[in-house]
């Protein structure tokens, strides 16, 4: 007899932790679960406590799905730092307060360093002393860098008296585990988030559909643009020796936009989800490639990270309060740490150092630069220099090693021929069109996006549905569209 039954083991394995398939906002499973989550959230929204318990449970499951039992680490961190903040607030003894802060920082950073940098330090130590270490088989909990930075900002702000500690532990756990920000930020501050949670205002129509608009924009950036152009970039960066200078330059331009679409697309989705749930998570990327200098770039790129580094590294180091020389040293330290935060490899350190040097040079030259008249031409030259510099540094960010980065740079300098342009355009026309569209969209004025957003919010429901369906279809079309890897055999 033929019977169709739900295979429970299949269902459980679909819902269980899988290190190869973390739950991301681009996965179908997330959206199916969100469809179940949304009506329950809406029903519970006005009952603050119940809503919080429900969201915390969902967030912890979200974390479990991506990182397994490491979600308990987040719970432990939240308990510890909540208690430390309470202690700091209640203690009048300055030394005790300082010790509590230090213990909290050691605890949070210790966990982060262990999971993210153990192998990096071991390999470098091995290189220095010539040992024979085996790298540890560590699973890095997804998003650990982001929630660690959030919890540090909370404890430090309480220590500095900028905020009061939250009385209710659940408020803190809600803040730390809030699933839209869990995997890739933005690094929201407790002082911005907790008041919204405590007010628990209902989400307006503008927030809900504005959130959907942002999610759609994020999906377009991440799942259509970034993922498609990444294919060619991966191939070229994977075998730089096999590509001509022109092809490598295209890969660099491609990666420059891929990383923006990837990071900012995911941020858009997170901010959109937050907006749907009634939370304003701020802006994380503000058209960074429009910047006219590197300082401006860092005011527009990954804003929640750059302001975090400013407030919790640069300023505590002394900022610009201890003279020009110290200011430059502080900038370099901040950017080196910022580079290392992005990944445990020396290529990231070089990327951070490059930006640090550029920031120092800009600070030194600023009086002279301010004296130059702002014309279209000077603005264009400033933009071109800034963009080129940022793009070149992305090579170190993307390349697997210094050797590979060197091959890319050497290829572009020594093996560049415009003759490849027509062949490239003909063979990779979709890729080129897509890249051109992304660059074009990046320079669409903000007010145009705002108009589109408002139009979408006020559009009839059916129109919204149609737009949403068209977008998802685009994602499906490009999810299986491929770029040709090898134009010619170079055997």
């Amino acid at each position, binding site marked *: 007899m033929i*019977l169709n039954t739900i*295979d429970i083991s299949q269902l459980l394995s679909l819902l269980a932790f899988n290190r190869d398939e973390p739950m991301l906002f681009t996965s179908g499973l997330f959206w199916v679960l969100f469809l179940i989550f949304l009506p329950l959230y*809406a029903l519970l929204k006005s009952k603050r406590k119940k809503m919080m318990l429900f969201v915390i449970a969902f967030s912890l499951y979200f974390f479990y799905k991506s990182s397994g039992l490491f979600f308990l680490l987040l719970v432990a961190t939240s308990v510890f730092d909540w208690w430390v903040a309470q202690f700091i607030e209640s203690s009048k003894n300055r030394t005790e307060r300082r010790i509590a802060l230090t213990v909290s920082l050691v605890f949070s950073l210790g966990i982060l360093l262990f999971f993210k940098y153990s192998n990096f330090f071991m390999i470098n130590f091995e290189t220095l002393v010539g040992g024979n270490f085996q790298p540890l088989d560590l699973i890095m909990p997804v998003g650990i860098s982001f929630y660690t930075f959030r919890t540090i900002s909370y404890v430090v702000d309480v220590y500095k008296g900028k905020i009061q500690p939250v009385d209710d532990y659940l408020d803190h756990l809600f803040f730390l585990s809030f699933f839209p920000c869990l995997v890739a930020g933005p690094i929201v501050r407790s002082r911005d988030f907790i008041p919204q949670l405590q007010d628990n205002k209902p989400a307006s*129509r503008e927030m809900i*559909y504005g959130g959907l608009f942002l999610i759609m924009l994020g999906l377009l950036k991440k799942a259509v643009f970034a993922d498609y152009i990444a294919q060619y970039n991966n191939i070229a960066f994977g075998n730089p020796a096999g590509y001509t200078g022109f092809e490598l330059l295209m890969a660099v331009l491609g990666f420059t936009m891929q990383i923006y679409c990837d990071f900012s697309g995911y941020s858009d989705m997170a901010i959109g989800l937050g907006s749907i749930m009634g939370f304003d998570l701020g802006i994380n990327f503000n058209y960074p490639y429009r910047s006219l200098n590197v300082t401006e770039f860092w005011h527009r790129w990954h804003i929640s990270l750059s302001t975090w580094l400013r407030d919790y590294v640069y300023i505590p180091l002394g900022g610009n309060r201890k003279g020009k020389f110290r200011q430059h040293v502080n900038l370099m330290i901040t950017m080196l740490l910022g580079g290392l935060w992005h990944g445990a490899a020396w290529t990231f350190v070089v990327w951070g150092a490059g930006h640090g040097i550029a920031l120092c040079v800009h600070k030194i030259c600023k009086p002279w630069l301010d004296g130059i008249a702002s014309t279209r031409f000077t603005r264009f030259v400033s933009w071109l220099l800034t963009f080129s510099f940022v793009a070149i540094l992305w090579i170190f960010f993307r390349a697997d090693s210094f050797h590979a980065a060197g091959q890319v740079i050497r290829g572009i300098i020594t093996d560049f021929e415009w003759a490849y342009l027509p062949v490239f355009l003909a063979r990779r026309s979709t890729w080129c069109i897509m890249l051109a569209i992304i660059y074009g969209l990046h320079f669409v004025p903000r007010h145009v996006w705002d108009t589109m957003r408002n139009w979408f919010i006020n559009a009839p429901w059916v129109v919204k549905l149609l737009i949403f369906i068209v977008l998802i279809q685009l994602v499906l079309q490009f999810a299986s569209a491929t770029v040709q890897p090898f134009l010619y055999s*170079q*055997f």
Partner: protein
Amino acid sequence: MNKPYWGLWALLLAALAFFAVLSIWQDGISVGPLDIKTASFARDMKALFQVDDAKADSLDLEQNDDNWRAPLDTTAKNILFIGDSMLEGLAPRLAKYCDKNGHSLVEVIWYSSSTLCWGESGRLTELINKYHPDYIFVCLGANELYVPDIKRARRPHVKKLLAEIGKIPYVWIGPPNWDKDTGINDLISQETPRGCFYLSAGDTFERSRDGAHPTRASAQQWMDRVIKWMDTGCAHPIRLDNPGEGISRASHIVIYQPPK
């Protein structure tokens, strides 16, 4: 629930229903020249609802597990070797084995080709009709190591290619990975019966300047490893005694330009 939430929920639900219904057409829908891709929803649901006869089929396979390998076929074969640029290194070495063992070899290199081009083109059927091979080697996959969602995107083409091969014994040599693939090896492994797929991904290669292709010498060693594996791991072993060092030339070589 406030009204905008209800509206958003209905919108997401309607979109899910729309894509769920479309996903019944697993291979996509063609509207004129436009090929509309569908989601994997129906396939995922099907995986959750096990059909008992499917289980029975798999049980049959397990019961017949001992019979997966045919006895060594010592007759001279008419071999067709198809694939991408990797054949430049592999085929000359196979030709040497063929010379030694009395097989004839037709080599068909389609540069930059993938399972997609072969599956869509029907070229293999033409080649089979033309050369009447009784044994086939395939080396494909190197040009699709990074294809996203590959299992969904390429499964129909792999199936089509295997259907074109039909009952002719074959060996599919997997791509020589230089980086982690997005699932091409898994896909071929899932679609081919036991003993018909040689996984090259774990092998070590000395690379040519492009970083992707093995050097000539390394490609010859690769072919040697495949043939050694055929001794014990191949479902349809044929006589391939070691011819000693060196390479030879296939009796017929066909070259196709990269697909547009």
